[in-house]
């Protein structure tokens, strides 16, 4: 075939080929139903990236205020709640604090509730919590006086502000209650009535001395109670029995050799707990005293029932944030300054995958479901 005839044939076929391809339509997808291995990676610039640690796939992104400390999932509704702070001119102008209700399938805001302009701004998981009545959401305030805003997420209204001098965080317990850690070395229990007003306040016996070995402000839920650790690696288990706040322990994360080696728990989110298996995971460093904010060079795994270490993982890159999924085959996800999400099998302690580019500055890690 001559070149001319070939060109003519191609040209003649071109319209036919075009007609055989259906034109594509632009659209927007919705997010699939999350599972226990899905997690949100809090990015410092006002976003939360949604990944599945089991596949490495990204499923979407939530735009939130850059002051938002953490997100609170609903256990039975496809909704997330975020305490947010906005200025009309980004860094200046009028400030408005709100609790925003985010729709999970579309990762979009669908309602907002104004709250006092007092929310605590840094990324602490226990700066927001939903009580077990699934109606009252708590937002921790820091001005730097301590208080808690109560929000009704059913009627979508601000209910009240509860002053909690000297006590911080919100850790839900059964019976429409929550615990706080106090500077006097005790835990505080506050219960609300059905309308969201304070109905009961009590404190535990003192169990630590802030001058000697402070309990860190990064507790994790552990079954029907909470697990707390001190700067020096003492582990306490807190629970509520009736109106009594009970604290058991402590037991130490450190052997004598670990103490000599200057090992300490540390990082911005150094602790994770698998409630079904009673396994405690902690980022650890060997920098000694006051290294509670330093990233960990290893993950240590503890049997919380036997109260002893059962494994350790040496990390290639230091990590400051750790999260444990709650499924039967749990995954441990960590991140740090390398901006990547590293996923480990929590039972074999083997590295499973690395998810690159987990945000501009990845931080706090949370499950999408809890």
């Amino acid at each position, binding site marked *: 075939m001559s070149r001319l005839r070939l060109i003519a044939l191609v040209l003649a076929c071109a319209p036919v080929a075009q007609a055989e391809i259906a034109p594509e339509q632009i659209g927007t997808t919705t997010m699939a139903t999350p599972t226990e291995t899905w997690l949100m990676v809090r*990015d*410092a*610039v*006002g976003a939360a990236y949604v990944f599945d640690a089991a596949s490495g796939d990204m499923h979407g992104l939530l735009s939130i205020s*850059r*002051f938002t400390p953490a997100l609170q999932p609903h256990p039975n509704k496809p909704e997330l709640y975020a305490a947010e*702070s906005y*200025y009309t001119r*980004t*860094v*200046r*102008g009028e*400030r408005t604090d709100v609790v925003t209700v985010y729709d999970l399938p579309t990762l979009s805001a669908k309602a907002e509730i104004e709250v006092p302009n007092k929310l*605590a*701004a*840094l*990324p*602490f998981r226990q700066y927001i919590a939903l009580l077990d009545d699934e109606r009252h959401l708590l937002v921790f305030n*820091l*001005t*730097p*006086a*301590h208080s808690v805003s109560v929000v009704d997420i059913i009627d979508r209204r601000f209910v009240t502000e509860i002053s909690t*001098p*000297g*006590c*911080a*965080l919100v850790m839900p317990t059964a019976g429409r209650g929550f615990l*706080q*850690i*106090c*500077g006097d070395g005790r835990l505080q229990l506050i219960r609300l009535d059905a309308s969201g007003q304070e109905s009961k306040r009590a404190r535990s016996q003192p169990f630590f001395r*802030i001058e000697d070995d*402070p*309990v*860190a*402000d990064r507790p994790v839920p552990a079954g029907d109670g909470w697990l707390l650790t001190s700067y020096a690696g003492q582990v306490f288990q807190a629970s509520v029995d009736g109106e009594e706040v009970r604290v058991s322990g402590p037991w130490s994360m450190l052997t004598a050799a670990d103490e000599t080696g200057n090992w300490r728990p540390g990082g*911005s989110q150094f602790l994770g707990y698998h409630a079904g298996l009673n396994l405690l995971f902690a980022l650890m460093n060997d920098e000694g005293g*006051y*290294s*509670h*904010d*330093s*990233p960990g060079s290893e993950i240590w795994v503890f049997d919380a029932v036997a109260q002893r270490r059962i494994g350790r993982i040496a990390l290639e890159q230091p990590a*400051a944030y750790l999260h444990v999924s709650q499924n039967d085959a749990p995954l441990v996800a960590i991140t*740090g*300054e390398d901006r990547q999400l590293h996923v480990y099998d929590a039972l074999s302690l083997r590295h499973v995958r690395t998810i690159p580019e987990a*945000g*501009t*500055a*990845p*931080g706090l890690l949370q499950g999408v479901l809890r």
Partner: protein
Amino acid sequence: MKLEDLFAWFDRTAQHASRSVAQQSARRSFIGRLGSVLVGASVLPLLPVARAASGTARQVSEIGDPQSCEYWRYCALGGTLCTCCGGSTTECPPGAEPSPISWVGTCHNPLDDKDYLISYNDCCGKAVCARCFCHNAERDLPVYNPAKANDILWCFGTESRAYHCTVAVVLGEAKA
């Protein structure tokens, strides 16, 4: 805190607040409104500065690079250094507003071998200056004890909570 935290929410600092603003009624009324023991604890250490400013107090002799996280004043600083952002150890960069309240650390001055109370004030109202990130946690306490906690966005009592950088102001000698 790591760089990630910076970008968005971190805040710390402001000093000449403790020297000049300390005598202004606006600040006092703000603190009065707070009426908190904890806030009181964070503010009390500012008093030696007022005395120093009015008297014949000596200047602290220092050694080191104020743009380095290793600088002796920064032993409990968490944030970015204003000295790297157009400010100084005691002055916010242009246009940033010093937070009138702060957290307080105790740092050892290697030159005269004495301990000093250091006020870490955040400079606020501008985008974060993401230079010279520094996080030291010597004697840092959890957020239930805010006067000595550096994991707090300290832009309180300012027009905006937006964090820019942190200064480190010598309040006085820490005497046992």
